[in-house]
């Protein structure tokens, strides 16, 4: 890196800290940006700053938003009896893209992860309990990831929530729609078999 002028080295160094980007990719991105017109680069740098300045977490559901409460929490058409619990804002967006879910959300901003020192106090669990104690929720849908951290988080919350709410459910694990059975991995297939349903 000793060969690069200081601003170039600094940008390479900054890009390298992003997830999934190694030294070669950081170099490539840096030299790509060097060749772009100045406004385009300014636009990029401004949007980087704006995301940090203007975006906040919604105080109700902890989704990322530019207004608090967020549009989803403020929407009177959303069913307040249904509450879907997800790990990250990305997961909320994925659920929203289905267009099927008309209830409300709660974002935990993480999952229980002893290896990273993340316990229940580091997640928005207290806030979740407060929302449920407020009354309206009849069903909590635990939509954390199907990995060991997500599963532990769901089990932990299920135990806490069962005395407080009518129904606590966990999203099903199974086959991707539109896929072929023969290409499904064996674990997914056996989980799908476990979660089979009677057909009417």
């Amino acid at each position: 890196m000793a060969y690069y002028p200081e601003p170039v080295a600094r940008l390479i160094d900054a890009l390298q800290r992003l997830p999934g980007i190694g030294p070669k990719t950081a170099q490539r991105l840096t030299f790509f940006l060097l060749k772009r017109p100045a406004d385009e680069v300014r636009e990029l740098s401004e949007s980087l700053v704006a995301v940090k300045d203007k975006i906040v977490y919604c105080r109700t559901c902890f989704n990322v938003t530019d207004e608090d409460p967020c549009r989803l929490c403020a929407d009177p058409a959303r069913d307040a009896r249904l509450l879907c619990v997800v790990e990250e804002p990305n997961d909320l967006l994925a659920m929203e893209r289905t267009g099927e879910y008309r209830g409300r959300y709660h974002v935990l901003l993480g999952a229980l992860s002893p290896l990273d020192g993340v316990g229940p106090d580091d997640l928005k669990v207290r806030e979740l309990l407060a929302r449920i104690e407020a009354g309206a929720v009849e069903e909590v849908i635990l939509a954390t990831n199907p990995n060991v951290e997500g599963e532990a988080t769901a089990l932990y919350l299920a135990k806490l929530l069962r005395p407080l709410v009518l129904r606590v459910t966990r999203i099903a694990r199974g086959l991707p729609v539109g896929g072929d059975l023969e290409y499904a991995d064996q674990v997914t297939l056996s989980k799908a078999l476990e979660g089979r349903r009677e057909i009417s």
Partner: protein
Amino acid sequence: MQIGWIHVVDFRNYRTLEYSPTPRLNLLIGPNAQGKTNLLEALGMLIAGRSFRTSRLAEMPRWGVERSTISGELVRGDGSAGRRVVRRTLTKREDDRWQNAGESVEWARVIAFGWQDLEIINGAPGARRNFIDGFAGRLYPTHLAALVRYRQILARRNRLLQQHAHGDDAAARLQPWNEQLAAVGMELMDRRRKAVAALQTELARIYRALSTTRSKVEVRYWTALGEATEPAALLAALNRTQRAELRRGQTLVGPHRDDLAIEIDGVDARAFASRGQQRLVALVLRLAEVLPVAEAAGTAPVLLLDDALSELDPGVRELVLRELGAAEQVFLTSPETLAVKGAAVFQVNAGGIAPV
């Protein structure tokens, strides 16, 4: 099944190697350190996509290269049931870690025997758990994925035990990990027990055929949970030992603490068996895998036997070779030339191979 041909580039001591074995017994001879074991490892990688020697990918590529490839043809049964050309690559990523890529062939199975298998008899319990997990994985394809998941849960639960040795909310924090550990743990134990049962018949038959004695070999699965088959039993055991676990900072019950008892005429094999006898029992354990694996996969596995005849009596060698004559494709390495009827002999020398 058989390997029709294999093409190796930049793997261990091989720059390039092309080799078309016979569908029966292949004898690979040559002095030490010429690449016999490396060739077996490449054959195993081609079939299973994993090495039987190491889990560290960085060990396998030839020194200094950024990529190594193994490609070849896998033949099911006599070839009428299907052929697949597979290609596996080890590539060095930008962050200096190695990536292993290649498709898996659902019916392809390989069983490897090497000097390290002596550990199954006289080593620590971990070697016996690895043996039974490897075998269970060849019988039940979901076993290894469950094992990976179990290890993830265990690592996180142990960390929690270390962090919360004095916390009063330890039980509530452990509970979600206990439940997962119990569910996946019992799944593992169930398949390991089935694997042990599947091994038993063949083990007795082959040991009688190969040893010149009338001794009987038996394998039993040992667990602190006895005969229990329900996750609730493991969950209860975790709750019982929690205090000790918090003190020690590790999980004290579960399949990661289980063992196999391997006995010759009712006596622990490691206690009385001679080294030659221990080697024979280790070899017989691998050979006993063949029939159950063939039944589970629908085609016979390929056998990779690294120096399997050393330390055996000449009489026993003859019997082993006769047993191997009945198997499908076998690769057997040896530092010295062996006279075996019907075997194709190949000389391995300094990273090359030639028929003799």
